[in-house]
């Protein structure tokens, strides 16, 4: 008997998008429970399910919570293991995927969000860091079609949500990403051909609208 599955998430949260893409990829049915991030109040359910960090996404499977998006992805991979695996089988390749996913968490989130948080000289420095960081991701891909190798997987899912904000970064940073990072842009287009990705990622104008609202709420002008 299938256990109940729900996801506490907010539709524009990049870490939440990772989980939704993975669930779509595996064809898993779940209930989406929206946590409104535009208010400062956290729902009683979120506080109960993630008392330590009080953050989304949280996957709730059979009443038990799993927190932290990369941990949720690995959980999904291990529980629903009949369908195409998200992580490769080979330990060396798994270590490669985990290393670079950790890099995305440590570096990519900050350098993407800095593009609309910083101004003047700090913004120019942020732009430089953005390009350097994504160039390293291009290096990780080598000549493969996907970050995971020949097939779309864990590492692609870890990074792809941030590309929904590329257009926004270009507007605030006043630069074009494609000439600097052609491989990443081509990879993002390839990923967007998958239904799981195109269904989950917001389109560029919507992503821009969301960021403008977020800036207003955070008092950035």
């Amino acid at each position, binding site marked *: 008997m299938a256990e109940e599955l729900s996801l506490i998430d907010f539709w524009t949260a990049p870490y939440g998008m990772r989980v939704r893409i993975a669930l779509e990829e595996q064809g898993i049915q779940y209930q989406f429970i929206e946590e409104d991030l535009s208010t400062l109040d956290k729902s009683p359910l979120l506080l109960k399910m993630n008392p*330590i960090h009080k953050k989304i996404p949280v996957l709730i*499977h059979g009443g*038990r919570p*799993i*927190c*932290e998006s990369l*941990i*949720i992805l*690995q*959980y999904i991979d*291990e*529980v629903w293991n009949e369908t195409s695996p998200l992580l490769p089988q080979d*330990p*060396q390749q*798994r*270590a490669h995927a*985990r*290393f670079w996913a*950790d*890099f995305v968490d440590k570096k990519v989130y900050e350098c993407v969000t800095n593009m609309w948080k910083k101004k003047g000289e700090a913004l120019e420095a942020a732009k430089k860091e953005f390009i350097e960081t994504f160039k*390293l991701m291009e290096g990780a891909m080598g000549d493969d079609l996907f970050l995971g190798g020949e097939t779309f997987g864990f590492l692609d899912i870890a990074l792809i949500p941030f590309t929904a904000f590329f257009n926004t970064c270009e507007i605030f940073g006043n630069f074009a990403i494609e000439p600097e990072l052609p491989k990443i842009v081509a990879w993002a287009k390839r990923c967007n051909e998958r239904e799981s990705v195109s269904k989950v990622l917001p389109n560029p104008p919507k992503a821009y609208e969301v960021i403008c609202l977020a800036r207003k709420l955070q008092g950035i002008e």
Partner: protein
Amino acid sequence: MADEVTLLNTWPSPFGIRVRIALAEKGIKYEHKEENLQDKSPLLLKMNPVHKKIPVLIHNGKPICESLVIVQYIDEVWKETSPLLPSDPHLRAQGRFWADFLDNKVLDCVRKILLTKDEKEAGKELIECLKLLEGELGEKPYFGGEKFGYVDLSFIPFYSLFYSFETFGNISIESECPKLIAWAKRCLQKESVSESVADPEKVYHFWEQRKKKLGLE
């Protein structure tokens, strides 16, 4: 063909200690190369060009970086001996969650205590984090349950730093978190742990010197 295993490390690093414990648990023979982080070796720069940090495990010429990635790799390659992560997916997720907690929330406090002047403030924050860990341990002998596991391995290396945290941070971990101290002593009874952890006084002197150099005392 015999495996060639090398570990690039520095003796005070709790992250390196994690890998040493994992290798000892699995009975893996390896070459230990002590790095000087003020003068990084060409090998380290070649094997970890992205972060240029230790520990780095080199297995048959291929590098694996980031301590938790390395520990999971060791667990997957040498899977017949002493499994570190449980087999149940939910328990595995729990284990990964708490290891991630150590590397984010706890490490933030550790950095502040060792590398800034906000030692006392950070000391209080560290106690809050340790109390959460103590809550997770509960009445179990180990975080892994009846057996020493992934979270125990990820956390015990920080025991080498407890004396430093207490002295710099003006806290008493023994009085605030007695269960954690009991757990640590239990872990230290394991050979893989006692042979891998660094001496707390030696570690304290190391950080005392480092703080002096950074003008932080």
